[in-house]
């Protein structure tokens, strides 16, 4: 029988034929937590009496959500995680290393891996062809102890993507458009599998942006094939040996096939307070923006900073608008400094946060005031997300965000480039 990408990966890992709907007990290649879900995970692990981690070398604790810590409570959570990592001999990152999902993509994930993380955006590694999904602290605690977890093999929705992006339109606009079509629960419990001519030419950075937001349609995973782009990406990190090709079988059964011609897309924005509440940027012109935030596991990579710097070069942020930039990782920050993007952004008026989750989830630096509006390149705009339930969050590509930083209102980037 022909299999989807999701069925292929889970079947190979479990060494049995699997079909959508089956329940499988699967081995876990990487299990991780971050600093706001980690302490509960560790406590659940300790209360389960496993004694030791199933695989310390593939158990990772990331300090990224509140990094560096803004208060004593979170500092004590960091200390708790550092103490655990020392005793359990597992991996832990340092503040300033970057967002967990970026570091997983940069240095850990392999095509065909099963990756579970106590963070919903764990789906990001689907860009490399990893079956990667978010779970809660108790599930991850059990994965820490057993090295296994259970899955219901998901039905797949095939997203057949064709055409060439028009000027000013990016992968972020595509995934916002898709979430608008599917709705915030349109892919709940399912796999989104991306394929088609546009996907074959898509950079890894674009694939990670799209996979990252598949959970905003409710999906369990967002999967890309592993191909030459994946191989080149792994080689660029010095781990070409981790590559293996991975594609769905011809004739696999999909619950649904959606065809999208990206040439027809325009710069797209999610409006408050749900991600599926999408409109075109040009329809929202005139909406004043007090903060622009460029960064996160969705759009904090070198390619994103390059687009933003290209638009902001020689310009200044609007005097009523502050621009905050958080590179997704230390590597991204170093590369962006070398390319001159950071100097360009600072000259335009940006303040640069340390690599990490930055202002995305309202923990520190970049919290909005009452009634303020933010245009963010992140993945969520729920009420209260950026630290204030009285504020309004719009989501867009880095190009739309950078253009809007110049004008002080939501702006179609084609107006300024």
């Amino acid at each position, binding site marked *: 029988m022909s299999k989807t990408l999701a069925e292929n990966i889970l079947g190979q890992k479990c060494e049995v034929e699997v079909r959508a709907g089956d*329940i499988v*007990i699967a081995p876990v290649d990487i299990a991780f937590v971050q600093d*706001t*879900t980690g*302490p*509960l995970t560790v406590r*659940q692990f300790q*209360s*389960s*009496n496993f004694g030791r981690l199933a695989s310390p070398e593939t158990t990772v604790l990331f300090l990224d*959500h*509140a990094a560096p810590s*803004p*208060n004593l*409570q*979170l500092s*004590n*959570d960091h200390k*708790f995680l550092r103490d655990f990592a020392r005793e359990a001999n597992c991996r832990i990152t340092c503040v300033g290393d970057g967002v967990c999902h970026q570091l997983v993509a940069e240095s850990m994930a392999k095509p065909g891996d099963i990756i579970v*993380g*106590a*963070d*919903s955006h*764990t789906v990001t590694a689907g860009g490399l062809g990893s079956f990667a999904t*978010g*779970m*809660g*602290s*108790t*599930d991850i*605690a*059990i994965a820490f*102890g*057993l090295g*296994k*977890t*259970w899955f*219901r093999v998901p039905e797949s929705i095939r997203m057949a993507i064709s055409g060439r992006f028009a000027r000013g339109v990016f992968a972020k606009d595509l995934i916002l458009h898709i979430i608008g079509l599917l709705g*915030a*629960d349109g892919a*709940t*419990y399912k796999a989104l599998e991306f394929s088609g001519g546009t996907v074959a030419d898509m950079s890894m950075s674009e694939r990670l942006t799209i996979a990252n937001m598949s959970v905003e349609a*409710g999906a*369990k995973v967002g999967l890309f094939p592993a191909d030459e782009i994946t191989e080149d990406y792994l080689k660029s990190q010095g781990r070409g040996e981790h590559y293996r090709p991975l594609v769905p079988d011809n004739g696999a059964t999909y619950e649904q096939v959606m065809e999208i011609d990206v040439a027809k897309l325009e710069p797209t924005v999610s409006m408050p307070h*749900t991600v599926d509440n999408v409109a075109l940027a040009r329809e929202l012109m005139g909406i004043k923006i007090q903060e622009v935030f460029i960064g996160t596991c969705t759009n904090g990579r070198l390619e994103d900073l390059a687009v933003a710097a290209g638009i902001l070069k020689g310009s200044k942020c609007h005097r009523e608008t502050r621009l905050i930039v958080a590179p997704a990782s230390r590597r991204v920050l170093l590369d962006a400094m070398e390319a001159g993007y950071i100097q360009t952004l600072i000259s335009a008026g940006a303040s640069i946060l340390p690599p990490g989750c930055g202002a995305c*989830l*309202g*923990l520190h630096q970049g*919290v909005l005031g009452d009634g303020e509006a933010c245009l963010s390149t992140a993945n*969520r705009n*729920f*009420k*209260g*997300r950026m*630290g*204030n*339930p009285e504020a309004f969050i719009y989501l867009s590509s880095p190009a739309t965000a950078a253009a809007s930083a110049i004008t002080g209102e939501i702006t179609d980037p084609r107006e300024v480039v």
Partner: protein
Amino acid sequence: MLKGKVFKFGDSISTDHITPGRLAHLRSNLPELAKHVLEDADPGFASRVKPGDFIVAGSNFGLGSSREHAPLVIKMAGVSAILAKSVARIFFRNAINLGLPILICDTALINDGDELEIDLSSSIIRDITNGNEMASGKIPAVMLDILNEGGLIPYIQKYGGFNS
């Protein structure tokens, strides 16, 4: 048999409504965190909810973050079950892993303040206030087994792993 009063919510109640990021510093102080449960959806909820009461919601309850603190503070508030038209994937797993029942049913006919009676073994929901009776959808067997043990940790401690 579960019995309690309904607190009715709409569609798309996110984990940020239930326990927002701005309170992340309280996540290692759960009693304090629980005082703010659902604050951004209904600021009076935490002070009015009583042990045994139910949360009844629309579609896609619990969407967003993987933070298990969301079902945890709901459970700590004494809520005995969540009824919704649909529930986000991670929240569903998290609630069951904590031994907090979730019933998927058409919640349109249940009103805020109604008294409900729920028989978990038969999944029958009776609205005492308006006399309606309905059955909830079946929970997958693997999750029912976990729920019946009181959560994932007691389940793993009993069986030593997952029953395949």
